[in-house]
C-alpha cells in the first residue's frame, strides 16, 4: 500500500511517500494510525493528536472508521487551508 504524508506529517515523519506491507490485523484507518504511531518518535509525534489528522483513502477524504482493505493509496495531512 502506498502511504503519502503532507505538510507537517511529512516534516515530522521525514517521509513524503512510502510503500508498506501492512502487518496482519489492520482493518481500518484507526488501526493504521495506531500502527504508524508506534514506528518511531517522529511518527508518534505526527500522529499524537487525532483531532488534527485528516485522511484520504484512494484520494477521497474519509473518516477513521473507513476500512483500508484493498486500498492502494492512503494519505495523511492536517486540516486543509486552501483558497
Amino acid at each position: 500500500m502506498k502511504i503519502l504524508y503532507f505538510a507537517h506529517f511529512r516534516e515530522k515523519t521525514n517521509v513524503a511517500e512510502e510503500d508498506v506491507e501492512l502487518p496482519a490485523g489492520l482493518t481500518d484507518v484507526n488501526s493504521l494510525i495506531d500502527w504508524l504511531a508506534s514506528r518511531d518518535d517522529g511518527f508518534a509525534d505526527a500522529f499524537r493528536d487525532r483531532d488534527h489528522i485528516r485522511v484520504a483513502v484512494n484520494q477521497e477524504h474519509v473518516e477513521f472508521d473507513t476500512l483500508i482493505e484493498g486500498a492502494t493509496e492512503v494519505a495523511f495531512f492536517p486540516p486543509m487551508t486552501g483558497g
Partner: protein
Amino acid sequence: MSVRVQLEDFDAGAEIAKISATNTNVGGVCSFVGLVREFDEGSAITAMTLEHYPGMTEKQLAKIEAEAHERWPLEDSLIIHRYGRMEPGEQIVLVVTASAHRKAAFEACEFLIDWLKTQAPFWKSEETPDGAKWVDAKAADDEAADKWKK
C-alpha cells in the same frame, strides 16, 4: 466548466472576459480572487508556500464544481488554484461563476471558495520573521463551509 491547478500566475481579467463571452444567456458573472496578504492575524508575512496533493486536488475540485452546477443553474464556471511560493499581493485562487441570474452566480461562487478553504487538499506555510509556520485551519472557515451543508 473547468478546473486548473497550476504553479503559474493567471490573468483573472482574461478568464472572466472569456466566460462572459461564452453565451448570451449569461446575465451575471461573479468572480472572486484570493490574494496573499502582507499580514495574517497580526504577523508579517514575507511569502507563503502552498503545498497540495496532486491527483486528489484536481479530482476533488472537479467534483465540487460539478456539485455547484447541480445546486445552481450555472451557465459556466472556472476554478484556478495555484500552488508553490507566492509573495504578498500575488494571486492564489480564482473562482468564476456565470448564470442567467445574479443570485445563483453569487451563491455558487461563495460556495466554491468556502469549500476550497476547508476541503481542498492544500496547505499553506507562511514565512514570517520568526521562521516558517504551517497555517492553522480557522474555525470561521469551517463555519462558512458548514452553512452549505444540505
